[in-house]
C-alpha cells in the first residue's frame, strides 16, 4: 500500500464525507439549508454532520494506511480464520461463532502487535502475492480510478459552487397536471370552516383542484408569493415547488392568476394580492389587484 494510494483512499472516504458535512453546516450557519431539505429534518442533519466532522478530525490519529495494512501481511492461517468468522455459512451454528471469534481476534491482535513477522517478511510476501492474484484486473482498476475522480469532481463542485434553487424550467417539466395532495381533504375542510390567510400556493392549488363546493371560496382575499409560469390566455400561473423531505421530491403546485396587465416573464418571482373568483367554466382563479416583482425568497419552497 503506497502512501499515495493510502492518501487517495482517505480522501475518497473521510474527505468526500467531510466536504458534504461542511456544505451542510455552511448552509445551516447561513440559514440556507432550506434550499435543499425540509427544515423539519434539520435536527437530524446538523448533529450528524457535526459528528461526522469530529470523526474525520479523529481519523487523523490513525496512521496513514493503518486501516489497510492489517490482515494483508498475515500468513495463510489468518486467511483461514477470517473465512471462518467473516463469511460464516448459513449452516454455521451460534456456538461456533461464540467460540472462535474471540480466539481469532486475540491471535490477530497478537500477530499485529508483534513486529517480528513483518520485519522478516517470509510469510508476508506469499500473502501479498495471493492478495495480488485476487485483485481485479487492469480495466477494473482504471474504472475504479475514473469513478473516484468523478466522485471527487462532483463533491468539489458541491463545495465550491454557489447554492441554488430549482429553476422554473424544471417546475414546468415536472408538472403532471394534478395538484400535490399532501394534505388531501383536510385542506379543503379547513378552507371552508377556518382561516385561509396562512395558505400558500400549494394549499390553494389543492383547494382549487379538489373543492366540492368552489363557491364557498369566492371572495376570499389572498396574498401569495411564487414564480411565474405560462398559463392559459389572459392568465399566468403562480407556481411554487412543494417539498416533503428534500428537493428531489419537489412537485410543482400552481394557481391561475388573471391580471389586466401584461403577464411578467416566466421565472420571475412575484407577490400577488387579489381575490378568489370563479370563471365561466366553473373553475376557480385569482383576480390580481396587484402583482409586484420581488427577489427570490430565502426559503423558495413550501412544505
Amino acid at each position, binding site marked *: 500500500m503506497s502512501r499515495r494510494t493510502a492518501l487517495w483512499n482517505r480522501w475518497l472516504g473521510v474527505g468526500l464525507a467531510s*466536504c458534504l458535512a461542511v456544505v451542510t453546516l455552511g448552509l445551516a450557519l447561513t440559514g440556507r439549508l432550506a434550499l435543499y431539505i425540509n427544515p423539519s429534518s434539520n435536527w437530524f442533519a446538523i448533529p450528524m454532520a457535526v459528528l461526522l466532522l469530529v470523526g474525520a*478530525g*479523529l481519523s487523523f*490519529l490513525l496512521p496513514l494506511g493503518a486501516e489497510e495494512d492489517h490482515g494483508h501481511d498475515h500468513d495463510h492461517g489468518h486467511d483461514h480464520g477470517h473465512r471462518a468468522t467473516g463469511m460464516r455459512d448459513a449452516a454455521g451454528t451460534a456456538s461456533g461463532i461464540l467460540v472462535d471469534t474471540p480466539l481469532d481476534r486475540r491471535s490477530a491482535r497478537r500477530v499485529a*502487535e508483534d513486529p517480528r513477522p513483518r520485519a522478516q517478511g517470509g510469510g508476508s510476501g506469499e500473502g501479498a502475492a495471493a492478495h495480488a492474484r485476487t485483485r481485479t484486473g487492469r480495466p477494473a482498476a482504471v474504472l475504479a480510478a475514473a469513478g473516484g475522480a*468523478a466522485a471527487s469532481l462532483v463533491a468539489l463542485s458541491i463545495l465550491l459552487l454557489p447554492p441554488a434553487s430549482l429553476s422554473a424550467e424544471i417546475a414546468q417539466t415536472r408538472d*403532471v397536471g394534478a395538484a400535490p395532495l399532501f394534505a388531501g381533504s383536510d385542506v379543503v375542510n379547513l378552507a371552508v370552516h377556518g382561516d385561509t390567510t396562512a395558505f400558500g400556493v400549494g394549499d390553494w392549488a389543492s383547494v382549487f383542484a379538489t373543492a366540492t363546493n368552489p363557491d364557498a371560496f369566492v371572495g376570499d382575499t389572498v396574498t401569495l408569493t411564487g414564480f411565474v409560469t405560462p398559463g392559459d390566455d389572459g392568465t399566468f400561473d403562480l407556481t411554487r415547488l412543494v417539498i416533503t423531505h428534500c428537493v428531489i421530491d419537489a412537485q410543482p403546485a400552481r394557481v391561475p392568476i388573471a391580471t389586466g396587465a401584461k403577464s411578467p416573464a416566466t421565472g420571475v418571482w412575484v407577490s400577488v394580492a387579489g381575490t378568489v373568483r370563479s370563471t365561466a367554466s366553473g373553475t376557480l382563479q385569482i383576480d390580481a389587484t396587484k402583482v409586484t416583482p420581488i427577489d427570490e425568497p430565502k426559503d423558495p419552497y413550501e412544505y
Partner: protein
Amino acid sequence: MTRAPAHEPPTARLSVSPATRRTVAIGLGVGLVAVLFALNAFAPGLMPDLPTRAQDGLTLSISVLIESLPFVVLGVVLSIVVQVWIPPGMIERWMPRRAWARRAVLSLLGMLIPVCECGNVPFARGLMMRGFSVPETLTFLVAAPIVNPIVIITTHQAFGFSDGILVARLLGGYAIANLIGWLYSRHPDPDALVTDRFRDACETVTHEAGDRWRRSLAQLVVELRAVMPALVIGAALAGAVQVLVPRNALLAIGSNPVFSIVAMVLLAMIVSICSNVDSFFALSFASTFTPGSIVAFLLVGPLVDVKMLALLRTTFTTKVLVGMVVTVLLAAFAIAAGVNLVA
C-alpha cells in the same frame, strides 16, 4: 504499547513522543476541516453560473446527498457498534438456529433499527463482518428499507388502509426479502457473492489491532471509503437522469393496468427517493395511476433504485445485483398485478 507502526524508521519514533504526534495529527485534522469551511464560504463568490439544466441536476444531487448523509453516518455508527462494541455472541444468542428462521428474524430487524436504505448498506456490511452469512444479510438489506417504523408511519399517513397499499407494501417487501434470501442460500458458494474489495475490507477490519477506539476509527475510515464514492456517483446519476428524462413521457400511460406498473417501476428506479418519504411522492400520482402501480413504485424504489444499486455495488458482485433487480422487478410486478385485480 507497541502501537507505532513497525515499518517506520526507528528514528521517527525516537524523535517525536506519542503525545506530540497525537496533537499534531488532531491539529492537522482540524486545520483541514477549517480549510474546507473557508473554501465553502469564499469560493462560491468567484465561480461562474452553470447552465440552468446542469445547475438543476446539481441541485437535485446535492439535496439527495445532504438528505442521505445523516443516515449514512447513522449506518456507519451502527456498523461500528455491531462490529466493535457488542460482545461476541450477544446477538447470536438470540438468533434461531434454522437458516430460514434466522432470515425471517433478520428481515424483521429493520423494525428495531430505523435506518433507511442509505444507512443500511454500511450497517449490513457490519453484520457480515461480524459473521452473518451473505444470504442472511441480503435478506436484512432488502427488508429493512420497507419493514421499518418510519416507513410504516409515513406510508400510513399517506394512504391509510385504502386499496390495501400499505399491507401490500409491507407483506410484499417482507416476502421479496425472504425470497431473495432463500434464492441466494441455494448458491453453492455464498462467499463468491461479495466483491474482492469487500473481502479485503472484511479482512482488514476483523484483524484490526489496537483498542476498541482505534478499531472504531479504522471501521469509520473503511466504511466511509466504501460508501461515499458510490453515494456521490449514485446521487449525481439520480440528479442527471431526472433532468434528462422527460417525466411526462412516463406519465402518459397512467391508467393502463399493465403499462402503469412499468411506468411507475421506471420512475421509482430513476428518482431514488428515500423510502421514508416516497409514499408522499407516490400519493400525488395516486389520482391518475392504478393502485397496483403505486405498490410497485413503493416496493421497487427502496430496493433497486439508481442510488441504491451504486451503493450495493460496493459490496456485492454485478451478477448478484442483476439477480436482485430481476427478482425484485418480477416479484413487484406480480404483487402489483394482484393488487390491480383485487382493487
